[in-house]
């Protein structure tokens, strides 16, 4: 039995090899189409001419218009986009200011309780962070943070921080220690080594991590819609306002929400699998 298996498997005949390749490409194409078709259709329909949309015989529209996107922006999406960017940038600043030093410590130092502390961060990452939104409302009203981008950013920082610690830690761990030691020998201080050797080497990875954080905040809807009333972020604005609007406004809304995420992810695509691997493991 085993001998047969060896001769069959070790050297597949050209026909069998070809069939296998065809099968692989067929299956991969199905998967790729399954993912891409909804994206393509929704982008098309965000710009569809209304008459064509209501015409039963037109599946792929030939006429397009910018009206829907314009209307959505006029409806309040413009200021919501600005709020979303403010929240996301503040989230990056806060979560990196707090998380980067911790990530560095986990990557470069050995100390008592390191394992338990890392495990604590990992388990905090599992916490369903949306549940903090409701109680935070009362606190924010008391300290004057309610309905403010800053308040949302502080909550988003709690969401992003464990990821930033774990990602930066793995980025720093990937930089050879020898280089830092060489820097120390040649007379740099610890801070000097960090600023002039470690940081430049870590920068591409850190930029990708920042993009990742931006998208996390940009996409978050529950916390943002509970904590804001007039200063809505984009997803919160769409959840409350666009849902009551016409279909075209909804199509345009999904396009506007998806676009920056796609662009950013395209820039950081090299790091994408690794990054998600780290954050989800």
């Amino acid at each position: 039995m085993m001998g047969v298996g060896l001769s069959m498997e070790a050297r597949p005949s050209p026909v069998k090899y070809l069939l296998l390749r065809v099968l692989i490409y067929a299956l991969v194409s199905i998967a790729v189409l399954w993912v891409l078709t909804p994206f393509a259709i929704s982008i098309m329909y965000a710009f569809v001419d209304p008459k064509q949309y209501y015409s039963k015989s037109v599946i792929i529209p030939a006429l397009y218009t910018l009206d829907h996107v314009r209307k959505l922006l006029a409806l309040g999406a413009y200021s919501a986009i600005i709020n979303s960017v403010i929240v996301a940038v503040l989230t990056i600043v806060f979560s990196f200011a707090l998380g980067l030093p911790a990530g560095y410590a986990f990557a470069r130092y050995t100390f008592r309780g390191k394992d338990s502390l890392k495990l604590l961060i990992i388990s905090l990452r599992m916490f369903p962070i949306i549940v903090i939104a409701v109680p935070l409302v009362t606190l924010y009203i008391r300290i004057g943070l309610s309905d403010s981008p800053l308040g949302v950013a502080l909550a988003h920082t709690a969401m992003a921080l464990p990821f930033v610690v774990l990602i930066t830690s793995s980025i720093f761990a990937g930089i050879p220690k020898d280089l830092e030691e060489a820097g120390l020998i040649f007379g740099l201080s610890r801070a000097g080594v960090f600023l002039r050797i470690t940081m430049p080497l870590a920068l591409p990875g850190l930029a990708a991590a920042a993009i990742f954080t931006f998208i996390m905040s940009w996409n978050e809807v529950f916390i943002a819609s509970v904590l804001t009333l007039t200063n809505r972020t984009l997803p919160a604005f769409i959840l409350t306002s666009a849902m009551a609007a016409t279909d075209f406004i909804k199509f345009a809304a999904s396009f506007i929400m998806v676009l920056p995420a796609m662009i950013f992810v395209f820039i950081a695509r090299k790091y994408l699998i690794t990054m998600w691997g780290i954050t989800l493991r």
Partner: protein
Amino acid sequence: MSKPNKLILERYVPYILIAPALAYLLFFIGYPLAQAIVLAFIKEGGFTLENINYLLYSPSSKFFEALYFTLLLALVVIPIQVAIALGLATLLNIKFRGRNAALYIIILPLTISDVAAGLIWYTLLSPNGFFNKLLMNLGVISEPIYFFGYQYRHMEFLAIVLTEIWRATAIVFVILFAGLQLVSGELIEAAEVFGANAWQRLKYIIFPLLKPSLQAALIIRTLFAFQVFGVVWTLAGRDIPVLAGEAYYEQVELRHTGVAAIYALVIAAMSVALGYLYIKMFRAKYLEAGT
């Protein structure tokens, strides 16, 4: 500063670096949890069951329905996602031309928000949407299939399931794919030399080694499923109530902060129970690796 002093200080450096992040997290998780209990059970300085009574007995509360649909959705969606992700991970573990492009496309849905995913599928499935027009022009149906509205609740559920499979299968895929990359090629080659065929290699070597990743993917996906909100809210509103959706509705629409706080506590309790399982497993793996 003298030298010994500096050495002692050096020992505290890692703790000083970690403390701010940890303090921030503990505050932003600990304080809201404590506050949620207060909001839920304290009124005007005294203990109250008002909120919990509303939650359990009021005709306008949809707590049990929300619990039912949250669990049902997880139960329907997750097995399908795991099966698809397992197949895709095995497929993409084979080297072929264009593999990286395929990988990039398959994980694309990871990067978009749940609200956007809901709206994208609304575009596809609405009465004048792509799906209905395609089927009508192909002659498969003569009237559009309605997916939205309370009277089509079953179809709404189907739309949510489809969207969740489209959007979040990639989460499971990434974990399984990463796990598969860790399975050493040498082991598989050795099995090949000893005559194991493709199915035997899969069954006796790859699956057992993949088990930790599979468990992790299952738990993480279930944790996310407990928080499902954006997709359900955009496609079905309260027709299909879920826990996070009801928390949102009670807080934002009705200003029942105490009731919303109980929903938050329920989601937190369910997640912590599941997370505990995960940590127990992870710890075992973590210590085995000797780091």
